């Protein structure tokens, strides 16, 4: 190696212990009637790297020590083996090994930090092995500093250091979308993208909700089964994204005060555990996810009841609730703008809603005549605040499926 090392009678070697891989042998088969006869097959059978009684599946079973440093990602565990070897013919006393991981803004002692640690004594061509582990919590350049001190035969205290640099990269990219449903539920769609260089297995992606909410994970085929909706083999290839969906319901105590709930923007944290080659594990947690507070204005309209499937040209009814959520009384005027989508409102086109005091609500039953088949959006309700002359248009109240076929009764939400 380099000349500097030769001055010391101890040598230090460091190897990163990534997980071992499985060695895959090459097997070539042929028929007994072919020219090489059984010799090639016999060689494959005798090969301890090929699982017996099976054609080569490409999945080996022989563990192979890592042959390169590989990549290391945030949240994974960095592990390496330090070896100090006595190259001389003398017994070396007072051998101490220290290892420190240096990052851009902190340092973590990994080995030999205790002052009262016993010092080693090394026989000729003997070796001290130390395995160190560290969970990587910082991105960017890391430098492993290893220092060895010992007492030379002359009684002189000697020491030397070595530096090993590596980069820690980000393994995952998380993007979220929030949907604030009218019924105070919040839906969170989290896209977890694998930005490592190989496939990985997301072992756990859980939402830890903030105190205002309870969470229902919607990523399993059914609530009581363990199988995910993502298919049998739980793996994400490089650059692939997987969408997780969560439904957050306000806790009863939070629901009691709509104002608090409206300002509850903290949703929770995503806790992600993944594994890669031979179960190498990593874990990360996102910061608190924030949604935007839903904007209702002064009045809020929710659909209380609507059939999900209706028959063409057969009138159906929609039950609306109009709530005053501001601090003053509201005088509202209801008008139809045309049914939007595939249906027309049927009924008095302009009517006055009874005065609503703050927090009060009223329910209205409105009729619609479906005119076009398909999945249609119910729209075209306009409320006018007669005092402020402010109008509220509702262009996406609900959706209904209009069909030509006869609809069985009670197909309601």
């Amino acid at each position, binding site marked *: 190696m380099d000349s*500097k*090392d030769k001055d010391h009678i101890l040598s230090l070697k*460091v*190897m*990163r212990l990534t997980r*071992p891989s499985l*060695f*895959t042998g090459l097997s*070539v*088969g*042929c*028929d*007994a009637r*072919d*020219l090489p*006869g059984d010799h090639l097959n016999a060689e494959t059978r005798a090969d301890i790297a090929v699982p017996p009684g099976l*054609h*080569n*599946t*490409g999945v080996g079973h022989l563990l192979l*020590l890592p042959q390169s*440093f590989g990549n290391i990602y945030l*949240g994974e565990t960095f592990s*390496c083996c330090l070896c100090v070897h006595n190259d001389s013919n003398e017994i070396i006393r007072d051998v101490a090994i220290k290892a420190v991981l*240096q990052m*851009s*803004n902190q*340092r973590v*002692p990994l080995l030999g930090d205790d002052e009262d640690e016993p010092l080693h004594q090394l026989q000729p061509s003997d070796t001290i*092995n130390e395995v*160190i*582990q560290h*969970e990587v*919590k910082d991105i960017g350049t890391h*430098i492993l*500093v290893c*220092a060895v001190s010992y007492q030379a035969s002359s009684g002189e205290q000697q020491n*030397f250091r070595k*530096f*090993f640099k590596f980069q820690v990269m980000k393994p*995952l990219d998380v*993007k*979220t979308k929030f949907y604030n449903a009218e019924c105070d539920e919040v839906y969170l769609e989290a896209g977890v993208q694998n930005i490592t260089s190989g*496939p*990985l297995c997301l*072992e756990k992606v859980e939402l830890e909700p903030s105190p205002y909410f309870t969470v229902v994970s919607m990523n399993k085929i059914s609530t009581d089964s363990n199988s995910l909706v993502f*298919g049998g*083999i739980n*793996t994400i290839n490089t650059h692939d994204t997987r969408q997780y969906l969560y439904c957050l319901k306000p806790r009863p105590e939070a629901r009691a005060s709509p104002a608090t709930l409206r300002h509850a923007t903290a949703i929770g944290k995503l*806790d992600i555990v993944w*594994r890669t080659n031979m179960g190498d594990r990593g*874990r990360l*947690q*996102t*910061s608190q*996810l*924030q*949604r*935007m507070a839903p904007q209702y204005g002064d009045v809020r309209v929710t659909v209380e009841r609507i059939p999900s499937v209706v028959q063409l040209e057969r009138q159906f009814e929609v039950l609306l609730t109009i709530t005053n959520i501001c601090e003053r009384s509201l005088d509202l005027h209801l008008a139809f703008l045309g049914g939007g989508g595939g249906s027309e409102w049927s009924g008095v086109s302009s009517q006055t809603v009874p005065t609503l005091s703050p927090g009060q609500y009223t329910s209205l039953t409105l009729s619609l005549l479906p005119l076009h088949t398909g999945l249609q959006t119910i729209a075209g309700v306009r409320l006018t605040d007669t005092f402020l002359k402010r109008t509220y248009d509702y262009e*996406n109240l609900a959706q209904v499926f209009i069909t030509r076929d006869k609809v069985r009764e009670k197909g309601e939400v």
Partner: protein
Amino acid sequence: MATNPFAQPLPSDSTNLVEDDGRSFFDQLSAQSEESEAVIQQHMSEALPVEAITSTQSLPFTTQPNPPHNELSMQPVSLPYNTHQPDPLMTQQPVHVSVTEDFSGTQEATMMSSMHNESSGDIEQPTLDVVPVLTTAPLQGSQTQNFEQDVDASNALSQQGKGATQFNIPLTPQYDSSATKDSIFNQTVSPETMNTLSSHGTGIPTQLTPVQSAMMMSMSTSMLVTNPSPNTNVDIEATTVKFQQASLDTCNERELQTVSHTSTAAKDTQLMPGSSPAGNTVSPTAPAQQKPLSSSAKPGSTQGSAQDSFKSKENESKFLKYFSNTKKTNPFESMTTQISGGGNDSAMINPVYMSPTDSFNISNAIPSPDSFLTPATEQDVFTASLLSSDADRRHDAWIPSESTRQALVAMTTSPPGTYFPEKELLTMPGIAVKEDFGDPVKNLVRTYLGEEAASKRKILTAASVTQDDRGLRQLIAAGCYHAAVNLTTQLLTVYGQGEGRAGHPSKHTAHSIQLWFTRIALLIKLRRFSLAEVECQYFGDLDAPDLYFEFYPELYGGRKGSMVPFGFRLLVAELPQHLGKHTQALDRITALLRTCDQIIKNLGVGLSEDGSSLEMTSNMRDDSLKLWRTRRQRVLYSVTNCAVSLKDFRLAGSLLERLIQEDPNAVAGLYSALGRMCLQLGDVTAAQDMFNQHLEHSPPPPQHDPVQGLLHSAYISIAQNAFKDASEILQQAHKINSNNGLVINNLAVCLMYTGRVSEAIKLMEGAIISQPERFLHEALVLNLATMYELESSNAHQKKLKLLSSIAQHKGDSFNVAALKLQPQ
């Protein structure tokens, strides 16, 4: 690719620095480089020894002012460490060390990174997953102001609170103390590291500290706008880019080599017409060089015409020329002696294809499974067609492409000698290497141990065996694949398909195709994939008309089907996978699968394999169906292999599940493979399920081998990072069967991970000394060499000992790269 798992240490002068300060080495973290590139920029460096800064070239990014978040991060986070060990220099100063030697560092890598440092000022700010609409999720506490602005902005965009907004979420590592107390993690901590880890654990704050916030900031994009990105960020990204380039470069180089290889081969073929020896104007119907095969196959023939024997004499002399370096025998004589003598391997391989047709008797008419070539002369087309047995038809059946089919129809319907297919329809293979292969083991021994040691190595070479199939088999059995390839070179030269003959028409026989198959198989075994690819390309998709028996009515009479053995097709289909062209491999393998399916379908509806109508007894049909179902299974295994190598675990998993349905004899083994595949992709739970399935499908206790189950538990322990448990489990297995190479190897690897390197080495060495033939395996040697490198400074000497053991016990096909000897 030459990779080194070992951390290449920094060539540092730092030891000098340490001497003048005995207090702690770590007080002055510094780095030097030999070529005095910029090394460290330390801000607020008054307290630092001046000599630690040896920067001569300040890089643009290191001289930037400290990003604010660094200051922010300092107070709380330094606390645990400060109380732990007061060290004001290290905790308060972000130290940007720009040049140290990289872990992955081969020499080139180091050069790369230093080059990058010079140019990194020009490297663009990396685009960090920015989507225009995105806002940043707020950071804990400190950044609320910014966040509110963001929210306002997004509110303006939203409608009625229903607008879906995308957030880009910074990730932080798990910080609650339960993370370190996690059962899995705890289990795994080896006693040596326990102290450090637990002391470390107590120092971990349970809340997100500003350091992490700072880190999150550095990762969140919109923050980059308001705060200058930390210097390290630029560094990381740039370095990443650099490494990608480096790997690309090596790729390109490889690619280039292959290309140049191909182009030289092509050049050769262009050059050849001028320089080709006389007498090679081969017409497809009557090639001078192919004739001897059919004629010389009949020594002792009573019916042989005078003309024939004359010709064969003439050609014998030609043969002697080729084989002048061996004992002067006609290669085919040894063949006949083998037939009469019944050589060692003739029990398995009965070269009926070489037996004279005129000595036809009833015993020969019994379909021999080995009769892949049944030569016939024009005289006995009839007998030959009788000979073209059921087994032949079954094995040789193939469905030609439309153009090939037309050519074959034209061939059989036109009078002999009148139809000449287009040249494009012919395969014109040739050997693409000029030199014979040497013995790499011997060469290494010569280099490292001297001529004397090299002369002691005694192995078979192409010259020391008979120059025929038997010799070839002998070389293969002895593990001398290089020599065997050399022998195929000689034998193919006889067929006019030797070096430089690519692109020249030559006539195939079933035997020459078998030679090619053997050659390519051996090249692949020797991992000479590019050469195999070059030589295979002349065969195309193995569907040219001249690869069918019908193409040579004068030679094979009425025999039908393809001369290409099925194994050859698989080999050629799989080959691109070894060169990283997985898609091409998958395409080819899928095409094979399609043909197999079609053949099975044809047989199912009462047709012959290739879809023509043929009277077949139900036995014949069943035999054929059985054969083709087995072949289809082989193809499925091939696809699986390719999918695993591509790391397409979804595909591989679904194929393995399909094989579990289709190959009932291998169910247990397949579950085991599926389990190991799940571990490879990281799904430990699924792996455990599969291993349980394996147990269910294994035979009950008396016949049951407990070792397999222990191996499985050990894999699971490894996945849980519990190497200590894994090694204990494998010790148990080793006690049950101390002769299992797999257990020994896996145990040794686990011992390595628990820091017991010397024990691991002792175990491996013991196994290799006790049974060198069996345990001198490429993978075991690679592991042992890696252990040597880590354990001691005289790894080289120990590897040379291994080398001499290999020289003593192994043939020339041993992959000596496993020794990782440093070039001298």
